[in-house]
């Protein structure tokens, strides 16, 4: 049994398909990143898995439980940071942790958890006086009180300064090292790449790509390409004198490389042309490039991403 198993999950709000038939599994001890633009359906998915919202169709099993029907049992075993975490304004982080410990009936040392999430300095400040990052850290602290094996972290680092983000990353890495399973949503691709074993990119309620970052880049990226800084005339010359596909925009000639040796042919042609050219480099699409291409709805010319019609259909529905 995998900690999380989702199959053809659907959830609509009126005409809006917030989650539109997604399937995925999360392995034990894995950090699974859920990426996607605003309104993609990440929070809806996560809250269905937490047993906070009811699904319309499909199946979801979390630690073997149906999250909605067995929410009360499930909640003892999971830890959650909701998106926009809030707490009682007039309580301090230490008091909050003590409260959760009483509710979960566990004996823990609040200071230990506070230390773990780097919140010792603000342990005695009222929640209403904490900064955004400190609040997030408190959310993380509360999610750890019941020592869960499975954590759901919905945008744990949104709005944090780079240091605070890195601090939370460290906590997440520490949790992973302890063998915990983590589902993480984020808008930061570097964060997903740094922390996640696998990511799923959601858009309009669907998963448009899933796997390790490398797999996704491999599958949906354009592959390696040679870029030469030069004129459009040079681009035409290379095109005319080689078998290669040559693109040009803004002073950069871009040539997809089916094999490394293609680069040699391209450069030979450039040299032959006697024209001037500048810097040369090869580059691959980053996850950023793939993400932007996958979720923007504009298909690239190479037709590397299938399912354009699906995209258009769902964007129409959203405009209603």
């Amino acid at each position: 049994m995998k900690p999380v198993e989702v199959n053809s999950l659907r959830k609509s709000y009126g005409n809006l398909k917030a989650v539109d038939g997604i399937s995925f599994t999360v392995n034990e001890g894995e950090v699974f990143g859920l990426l996607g633009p605003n309104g993609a359906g990440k929070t809806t998915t996560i809250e269905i898995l937490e047993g906070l919202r009811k699904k319309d169709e499909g199946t979801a099993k979390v630690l073997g439980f149906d999250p909605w029907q067995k929410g009360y049992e499930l909640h003892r075993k999971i830890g959650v940071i909701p998106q926009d975490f809030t707490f009682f304004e007039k309580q301090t982080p230490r008091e909050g942790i003590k409260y959760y410990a009483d509710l979960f009936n566990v004996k823990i040392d609040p200071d230990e958890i506070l230390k773990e999430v780097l919140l010792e300095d603000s342990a005695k400040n009222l929640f209403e006086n904490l900064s955004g990052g400190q609040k997030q850290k408190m959310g993380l602290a509360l999610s750890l009180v019941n020592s869960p094996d499975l954590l759901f972290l919905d945008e744990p680092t949104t709005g944090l300064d780079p240091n605070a983000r890195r601090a939370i990353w460290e906590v997440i890495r520490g949790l992973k090292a302890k063998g915990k399973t983590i589902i993480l949503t984020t808008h930061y691709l570097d964060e997903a790449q740094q922390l996640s074993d696998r990511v799923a990119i959601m858009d309009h309620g669907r998963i448009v790509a899933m796997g390790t970052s490398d797999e996704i880049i491999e599958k949906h990226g354009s592959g390696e390409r040679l870029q030469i800084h030069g004129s459009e005339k040079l681009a035409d010359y290379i095109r005319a004198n080689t078998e290669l596909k040559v693109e040009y925009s803004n002073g950069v000639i871009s040539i997809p490389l089916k094999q490394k040796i293609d680069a040699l042919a391209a450069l030979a042609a450039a040299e032959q042309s006697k024209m001037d050219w500048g810097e040369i480099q090869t580059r691959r699409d980053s996850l950023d490039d793939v993400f932007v291409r996958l979720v923007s709805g504009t298909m690239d010319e190479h037709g590397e991403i299938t399912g354009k019609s699906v995209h258009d259909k769902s964007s129409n529905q959203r405009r209603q």
Partner: protein
Amino acid sequence: MEKLPEKAFMINPVIKGGSKLVSTKRIAADFKVFSRGYLRNKFGLFFGLIFPIILILIFGAIFSGSSSGTITVYAQNKDTGPFPTPQMDIATQFLNALNSSGTIRVVTVAASENFSQYLADHSASEGIVIPENFSANYLTAQQVDVTVYGNPTSSTSGIVTGTVSGVANYFNLQRFNGSMVIGLTQTTVNTQQTKYVDFLIPGLIGFSILVSPMFSLVNISSEYKKTKLFKQLSLTPLTKMEWLASKVLFYIVLSVVSFLLMVAVGVFAFGAHVTLTLWLIPFLILGPMLFAALGMLVGTVTKNPETAGVIGNIVTFPMMFLSGTFFPISIMPEYLQGIAHVLPLYYIIEGLNAVMVYANYAQALIDIAVVTAITIVIFAAAVKLFKWRED
């Protein structure tokens, strides 16, 4: 199909599943956090405890001032004549003389009223009845008695009796050289001598039983819904019944503290008479429970905190003024009294008055029954409609 378990949970959360039994430890933990938050919030503290005291001081001062100057006395004039000339209407002259004494202010009551009942309804213990043919008897020098109602143990009644006998003597002297034509009979009124502040205390206790839990739960139940705090709590073992229980418990404690403070101020500042008996306990428990549930109901059925606030005020304000909080409802016009009878707070205040002022426990029992019934209905509705999580 998926609805069933949730429904079972709503109706009887106590029974479902071994792990879901109500836990006093969790209620205590939530109680601790909530009361700590409350005490740290100066605003809540002010409205919960200080404000009712200020009201007692203000209203008590306003009304005790006027009542110590002149005493209001209800008078029923049964002498309807006929009077051949106005000078022969001795009864009216007698009442006018009483009025100009300066110590009492006569308020006439229609001859058709049952006078004892009228006094009881108006919570008055002093009254005067002028008998039929009073003027004719006086003019023909036949002995006739004015009846003075009063409580022998009360100093106010003593002043009234003294004043009436003084005026009667004056009339006797004027015409008969002092021989006893107009005499006095005394009727003891068994209602205790009550002062405005005696009503004010149960009224304002009712006020604080209403206001604190009501406003607070309207606010937090809509606010927690908006900020998703309820969702967060649903991720802990705390159940919504436990959550509500801890709120009700807190407001019961607050009501008792506020009750003791108000009674102390009433007694020491204004010499109020209040009876403290175990009969008060049902009201101090049911009241906060009722209004906490009502507040939660309002917060639950409304979409956002703004609407909740408005609806909360619409529910609270009429109750605040028409249930006998600041003045006895008997002095209100009939149609307002009709409205008062559908307001739950009315029965709480009526019951508190029955216990604290009149020692009328039969009445208190009826009020307890009514309040219990209303509480059960509101509480059940609130628990049924209140959801931790969304569908």
